[in-house]
């Protein structure tokens, strides 16, 4: 019963998002543009250097395609939540019978799940056409979906924690910007962590950011049970950590909100 209301929020937002199908198709198309460029770029590199970074061309392109697909799911709540805090709209949610974090999370997942599916279809179609089927056996797909979902949840909670900074400072955007740059280097969004110099790679592989995109995509192309359990256990730990942090920051932050009525 308790979870039913969150499921309803998810469903309502999913149905609402279907109104903007054309927008979503264009959004997925944009991902396709970058996948296409990377197909060409990495094909040129692999023609000169086979087995570059310990990947085959098929593995590396499916890695990159998977990253692009994951990016379409969930998204970051920083802009929305911090603006709601800035404008004081957050007070409207305080007396409602739901958990603010879970409510917004389900809203965000509902809004993007269809986009994720369009992206999955479109990017997969391109990759099958250019480099053939992905290397992973079909039976492992549910496990991959699990680590993708955990990564999306952690990303959301990190974003939520950043957004709550707006309770203390006027604008949380610079913090989101710094986070996006950390993601750029340490999440594997643009290139697998194997491309980093060794000392940066050693740091990056234990940062929470690499469990959002890099490890889920890497598992998809180079699955081992050992890696799966490592990724899964770290993700659970980070999930608890960032959920706790989000709760703590939000509960401290709302105490600073003053309601004037009107």
């Amino acid at each position, binding site marked *: 019963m308790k979870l039913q209301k969150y499921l309803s929020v998810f469903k309502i937002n999913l149905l609402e998002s279907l109104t903007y199908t*054309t927008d979503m198709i264009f959004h997925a198309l944009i991902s396709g543009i970058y996948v296409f460029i990377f197909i060409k770029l990495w094909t040129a590199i692999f023609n000169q250097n086979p087995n570059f970074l310990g990947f085959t061309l098929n593995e590396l392109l499916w890695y990159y395609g998977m990253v692009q697909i994951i990016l379409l799911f969930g998204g970051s709540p920083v802009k929305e939540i911090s603006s709601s805090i800035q404008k004081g709209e957050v007070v409207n949610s305080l007396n409602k019978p739901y958990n603010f974090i879970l409510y917004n999370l389900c809203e965000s997942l509902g809004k993007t799940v269809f986009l994720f599916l369009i992206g999955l279809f479109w990017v997969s179609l391109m990759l099958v056409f250019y480099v053939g089927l992905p290397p992973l056996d079909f039976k492992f797909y549910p496990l991959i979906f699990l680590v993708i979902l955990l990564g999306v949840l952690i990303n959301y909670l990190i974003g939520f924690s950043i957004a709550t900074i707006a309770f203390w400072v006027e604008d949380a955007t610079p913090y989101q910007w710094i986070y996006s740059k950390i993601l750029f280097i340490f999440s594997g969004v643009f290139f697998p962590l194997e*491309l980093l110099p060794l000392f940066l790679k050693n740091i990056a592989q234990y940062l929470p950011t690499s469990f959002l995109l890099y490890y889920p995509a890497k598992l998809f192309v180079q699955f081992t049970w050992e890696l799966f359990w490592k990724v899964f256990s770290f993700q659970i730990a980070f999930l608890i950590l960032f959920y706790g942090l989000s709760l703590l920051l939000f509960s401290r932050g709302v105490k600073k909100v003053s309601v004037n009525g009107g």
Partner: protein
Amino acid sequence: MEGKKYFAFVLAYFKQNLSTAMEYRVNFITQFFFMVLNDFFFILFWYFLFKKIDNINGWGFESSILLFAFAGLSYGFLDFFFGNWRELNKIIAEGSLDFHLALPKNELLHTMISKSNFSGMGDIVFGVCLFFLFGNMTMVSMGVLIIVTATGTLVLFSTNLIFQSMAFYVGNAQGLSSAGMNFLTGFSVYPISIFDSTWRFIFYFVFPIAFITNVPVILLQSFSLFWLVASIFASTSIFLVSLFIYKKGLKKYESGNLLNIRV
């Protein structure tokens, strides 16, 4: 005479936009600083990649950085001086073009210059720094740099104008314009040598994106009169085509009956 008047007109808007930037100095400096840092993070990819390989089909680290430098200059210039160049589709769809159509100056130029994105200055400064660091600049190459930046910027502006003008034909073209902008950005910051002959044909003759960054890099590194003439020809041609599409579309424009107060 007419040209002189337009120059004064553009200059007046530039002064106005600059004084706005100085009024919100902290905002200007923040946007400038973030853009420089943003660009720096992008070139890190090339740095890491070329630590592990020598070249990509003949393109080395310096050439790839120069691609980015040209892109920075073109995007920065358009963002700072022609701030509405990415927003035209919205202006058309909302019917806000009325304001500019009712005035005696060219409505396209007027719309473009009536806004400035301060972050563009960050792109410009970063691009110029890259040229001095990686471009082996001489007096001759400085001249080439100015000409090919102008032609590249014109190609970028024109191809984008084609996408933006689709709003005249389909109404809400936000998705299409955004896809177009990503198409331009994505393809212009990578070496053309990674694409096969069909795509190269498209990038030279259909959507001459190659002339935004790739040809300018070739020209800067080894000057050839052929490529210089081709750049001038390609940029002029695509500009005329884009103006034709824009003007055709403008005839379909429907006023939004919108009242605007410009303060």
